[in-house]
């Protein structure tokens, strides 16, 4: 294995590690649930992408033939990550999880219900 390939693989591995670490850090210490969602959906996709490319390059240079099986992992990740993030956000809204006070914009799901006044229709029901 030439030095350049080795350096490239190490670089990709380190970059991947850093991205995944920052993603997890975001999940650990951002203020509210909705903000914490951003870390794992984005920072980890590139992190894992970097590691998979590194793995692809490594086995290419060791075995001598290219192998794109790792790309499938990336593909599945790109398909599943947004869906799980969407479902998590949706269930978060459904459970009315608290959000940081500075969050602007009030989605209908999180508005306080007007008790006694006429009932507030749930946004997903009633019209449509």
């Amino acid at each position, binding site marked *: 294995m030439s030095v350049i390939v080795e350096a490239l693989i190490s670089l990709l591995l380190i970059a991947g590690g850093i991205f995944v670490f920052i993603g997890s850090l975001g999940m650990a210490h951002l203020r509210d649930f909705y*903000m914490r969602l951003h870390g794992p959906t984005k920072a980890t996709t590139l992190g894992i992408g970097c590691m998979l490319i590194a793995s692809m390059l490594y086995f290419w240079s060791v075995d001598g033939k290219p192998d794109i099986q790792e790309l499938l992992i990336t593909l599945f990740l790109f398909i599943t990550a947004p869906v799980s*993030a969407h479902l998590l956000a949706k269930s978060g809204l459904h459970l009315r999880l608290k959000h940081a006070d500075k969050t602007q914009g009030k989605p209908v799901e999180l508005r306080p219900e007007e008790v006694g006044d006429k009932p507030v229709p749930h946004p*997903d029901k009633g019209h449509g």
Partner: protein
Amino acid sequence: MIAPRSWLPTPVLSILLLVVWLLLVRSYAFGQFVLGGSLAILIPLLTHRFWDARSLIAKPFALLRFIFRVLGDIITANFEVAYLIANPWRKLKPHFIEYPLMLEERFTITLLASTISLTPGTVSANLRMDGKSLLIHALNVDDEEVLINQIRERYERPLKEIYEC
């Protein structure tokens, strides 16, 4: 493009399934072609009733360009989000945005929602039952209008051109 038939409702999906199967087993032996081929015919036959009518790709090259643009955006998105998280003096301005949809078909809306989740600082949180708007949570936004315009011009319009015209 191969026309859909009764025993092959989604030709493109079948080809994709076959390719994924061959890549998964890492073998191009004849037997794997037969096995993957029969799976590629059986799976769409068993599942296509659950889906809405799929859209035909009107412009394959526009789709390719769209994919590369999204990949580029995913990379910049990662740098941005990593910076936002790692910077200890950050002042985040999280924002819930009601995004009015221009797309009409469920499949394209799904694609748009996934794209939004994968790109700069935004996660799609809820699609209204009437399919008219999408709730987005953004990590750091100064101006709602700018973000909405950006999504509309960068992702929604190309998707509409590719699938719905």
